């Protein structure tokens, strides 16, 4: 018990406190505001949050379909696909970025067909969204699967006997039950995407104002020995991650209300 608290504070709490302390000590409020809202930083936030939102949305839609198919239907290779869903969690992000950049580049397996159609996947903002979709993929599927398995089919049967069509049953009964869980998965994928660094820098091209994400800008400031600039950006990201963490906790509580 004491060991748990000691280790927790040494590894997690003290470093976070140190970051906030340093900012309070070294950076005035005006400086902080100026550093955190430079034009370049604003462009980076816009890309980070925009691409994370798109990626989480794609994952919410396809993740729901995938979870549904994995729980409800039988088809060949089902076990293999179920195991593969965790692949983005197990694969180091640098490897993910490397292989995705290669796939979507002009001579890659997918880029070969997509680039002539005008779809530039590598070294563009679209690439950022692709990488973020990959890293956030398991969240929606994994949070939805147990809920789908635990759902009582009697309710659907009752709706059907009362004359509701399948589409109406889905909209009226299944969708509202799943929605809180889908939102939880969406928020988790979004939170993960906002902080993601490794996979994105391989595929993004990293041009300032165009395809530069906020975590990369922190690294660049650090390499310029601009500690105040790096810390200001880090505090912004950290506060947003805390807000997202609280949101996820609230969503989880809401979702668990639905299940009992």
């Amino acid at each position: 018990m004491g060991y748990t608290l000691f280790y927790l504070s040494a590894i997690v709490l003290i470093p976070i406190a140190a970051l906030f302390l340093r900012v309070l000590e070294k950076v005035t409020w005006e400086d902080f505001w100026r550093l955190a809202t430079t034009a370049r930083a604003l462009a980076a936030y816009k890309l980070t949050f925009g691409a994370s939102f798109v990626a989480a949305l794609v994952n919410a839609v396809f993740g729901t379909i995938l979870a549904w198919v994995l729980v409800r239907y039988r088809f060949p290779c089902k076990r293999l696909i179920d195991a593969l869903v965790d692949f983005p969690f197990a694969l180091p992000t640098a490897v993910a970025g490397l292989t995705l950049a290669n796939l979507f580049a002009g001579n890659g397996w997918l880029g070969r067909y997509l680039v002539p159609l005008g779809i530039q996947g590598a070294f563009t903002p679209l690439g950022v969204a692709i990488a973020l979709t990959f890293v956030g993929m398991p969240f929606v599927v994994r949070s939805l699967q147990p809920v789908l398995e635990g759902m009582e089919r009697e309710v659907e049967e009752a709706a059907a006997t009362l004359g509701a069509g399948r589409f109406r049953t889905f909209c009226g009964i299944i969708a509202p039950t799943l929605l809180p869980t889908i939102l939880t998965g969406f928020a988790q994928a979004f939170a993960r995407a906002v902080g993601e660094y490794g996979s994105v820098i391989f595929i993004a091209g990293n041009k300032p104002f165009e395809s530069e994400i906020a975590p990369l800008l922190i690294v660049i400031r650090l390499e310029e020995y601009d500690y105040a600039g790096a810390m200001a950006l880090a505090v912004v990201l950290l506060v947003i991650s805390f807000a997202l963490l609280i949101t996820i906790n609230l969503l989880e509580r809401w979702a668990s209300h639905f299940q009992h």
Partner: protein
Amino acid sequence: MKTDTDLIRRTRAGKARQGIEEAPFVRWLLIGVSLLFVLAFLLLPLVNVFAQAFSKGVLPYWKALVDPDTVSAIKLTLLVAAISVPLNTLFGVAAAWAIAKFNFRGKALLNSLLDLPFSVSPVVAGLMFVILFGLQGFFGAWLDEHNLRIIFAVPGIVIATVFITFPFVARELVPVMQAAGSDQEQAALTLGANGWQTFWHVTLPSAKWGLLYGVILCNARAMGEFGAVSVVSGHITGQTDTMPLRVEKLYQEYNATAAFTVASLLALLALLTLGIKTYLEWKQEREYARAQRVPSGLRT
């Protein structure tokens, strides 16, 4: 009159079946969409890693593998994992035990603090340790006086990795331990076992699969961490480059084959992790099924 109601009943029954199952067309459409999504986003990237690594044949692959800088990166990655995984395993067991078996004030807070490293961006995590131990940092001057280096050296990489992989074991263990309940421990205590004996012979064995699962996830992340390690490592080739950092450096040197060679080792690690995970799940399912069967066998 009678046939009419039969007909109505039959159409109703047909409708009811339709009502809980989608039309075959919809079903195959959904399966098709899922398979396409998995193929494009999961299978293709995986196959591509190995295809690119071996694109010039086996010999260049081998040459890239035995490059001294790559070998030192592999060694460093193994060393970092060998230190950080046991540390976090020890902590994970202690934290999960405290959360699952005891009631105390601030338990909910502790539970959510555990998740903190998951939600902090790896780059921000790296920066926090630069602020603590870097030359400009809180302990920087003191460390410099005593000639100790943490940032841009191996200790910094280990600390950053410990931070990032901190929640894995505890996260996997808490639900397993909670599900097991504390009845068995209480029985052991009444039979005269002391705290340690209870923990070793009752608590730990019942949670062993969850523990193993947490450890392999922790290990996979420890070996693959990029963002946080990249900030604190300093990128000194042959000294502070881990395998993921080596991948990036080779890629920036336009040495794609070598980059994919190192990447293929990491992808292999990911596959191995998934394989062990699937095996553990299967094993757990079987053990659960057997546990369900035994009592009825005893009864007859």
